[in-house]
């Protein structure tokens, strides 16, 4: 029963994505919408991403310094661990989990509200491919802007690690920078961007699917918004595992 339901949703999701990525009626209208969405997702999420990344970097540095206390591992490893933890895991995953909550629930509510107010029906009757017009710009904007947000998150997080460890005397600035420069593998940055691209696609497409298929009233809209966040988060963590298995 549950498997049938899951397969049913998967089928509907794939059909919706197929419709969403079909030829636009008028490219200029879609272009405008992509730019608007990039602004909403990018600029709108900058502050929350900044705050969370700063603290994650700071906490990582302090936690690792605590682990190192009394060991023979050199202190500059704090910089090294903060950098790699941030690039490989924390920046893409935590940022996208947060964005699933902020951007994903917003998208599900926006599209679900349009469904309930018959805006989607109105567009359908006009001849607009609503799946394409409402979903494609959001997904395209997200896969462009979220990797940029993740890169910013990575820099801020490392900055957070620096702020938490250097002024407090855990290690010197020189040691921290030395750690940042040690054992650097550019492949990890590639992995960060692959993760952020995949997570961006998942969180936007799943949220749009939830909103697009809302039936009923405000309670159902609330459920769709919650489902958008919960399912996106689960799929992001699952994809995180699969990418780690495949790319490492």
């Amino acid at each position, binding site marked *: 029963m549950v498997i049938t339901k899951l397969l049913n949703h998967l089928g509907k999701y794939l059909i919706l994505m197929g419709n969403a990525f079909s030829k636009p*009626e*008028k490219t200029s*209208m879609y272009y405008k919408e992509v730019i608007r969405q990039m602004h909403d997702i990018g600029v709108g999420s900058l502050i929350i991403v900044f705050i969370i990344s700063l603290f994650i970097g700071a906490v990582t540095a302090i936690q690792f310094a605590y682990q190192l206390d009394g060991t023979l591992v050199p202190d500059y490893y704090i910089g090294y661990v903060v950098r790699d933890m941030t690039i490989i895991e924390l920046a893409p995953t935590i940022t996208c989990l947060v964005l699933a909550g902020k951007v994903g629930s917003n998208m599900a509510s926006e599209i679900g509200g349009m469904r309930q*107010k*018959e*805006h989607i*029906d*109105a567009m*359908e*009757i*006009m*001849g*607009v491919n609503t799946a394409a017009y409402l979903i494609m710009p959001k997904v395209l904007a997200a896969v462009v802007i979220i990797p940029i947000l993740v890169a910013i998150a990575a820099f801020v997080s490392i900055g957070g690690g620096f702020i938490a460890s250097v002024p407090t005397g855990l290690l010197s600035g020189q040691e921290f920078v030395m750690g940042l420069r040690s054992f650097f593998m550019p492949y990890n940055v590639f992995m960060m961007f692959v993760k952020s691209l995949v997570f961006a696609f998942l969180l936007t497409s799943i949220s749009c699917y939830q909103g697009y298929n809302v039936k009923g009233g405000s309670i159902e809209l609330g459920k769709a918004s919650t489902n958008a966040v919960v399912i996106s988060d689960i799929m992001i963590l699952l994809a995180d595992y699969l990418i780690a298995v495949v790319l490492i």
Partner: protein
Amino acid sequence: MIKISGIYKSFGNTPVLKNISTEFQPGKTNLIIGKSGAGKTVLLKLLVGLIAPNEGQIFYNQIDFLHIKKKDLRTLRMKVGMLFQGSALFDSLTVEENIRFPLDMFTEMTKKEKSARVNTCLNRVSLDGINAKFPSELSGGMQKRVGIARAIVLNPSYLFCDEPNSGLDPKTSLVIDELIKDITIENNMTTIINTHDMNSVMEIGENVILLHEGEICWQGNKDEIMSSDNEILHDFIFASPFLQRLRNAAISNGFHK
């Protein structure tokens, strides 16, 4: 002209429409009436393609609407305008942007041409100068008129109206009815209105279809209503004791039958 034949629609095991066949003529206001749950909204949604029937055929002139190619469907959709019960105006767009939306999406008109067309439509619904307002700043009647302006902006051949008078006072309802009727005649459109409003039926009902338990139980025009012997029609039209007394008075004074 829109022609439907043998339309059957059920939700699960519950039939909503059973063997519906009729024609909707251009240049006329076609009204679908009936009690709540009679299947009016379902029929309207079938006609515009928002849901599909289990059986039956729908023809827009000679075009088989249910087996139309995707590309042709888009062309046909551009000839269709619809006024929704709740107006369905996009909240985040101004009145001008709402009316201009189909023009932006489907035409290559210049900004100036689009603006002129929007103003013409607003003028047609007597709402000049409200271009910059948002839907939330308008009254229910004004929202309906903006909805009509948006529906006619592409000069459609078919106009569908779902409960155009719901939530409006009788006087505003008359204005909306007159507007729809005039636009229908001016553009020789095939207009189909789904309504509960008996004033609309008696004012603009050129082709009235009464749905009862998913079937057409009466069809005629407003002038034939009074002289009809159909009990279901009379129970529906003259539902209140006041209207029943009025009808009896009319008959006893020799106005009808």
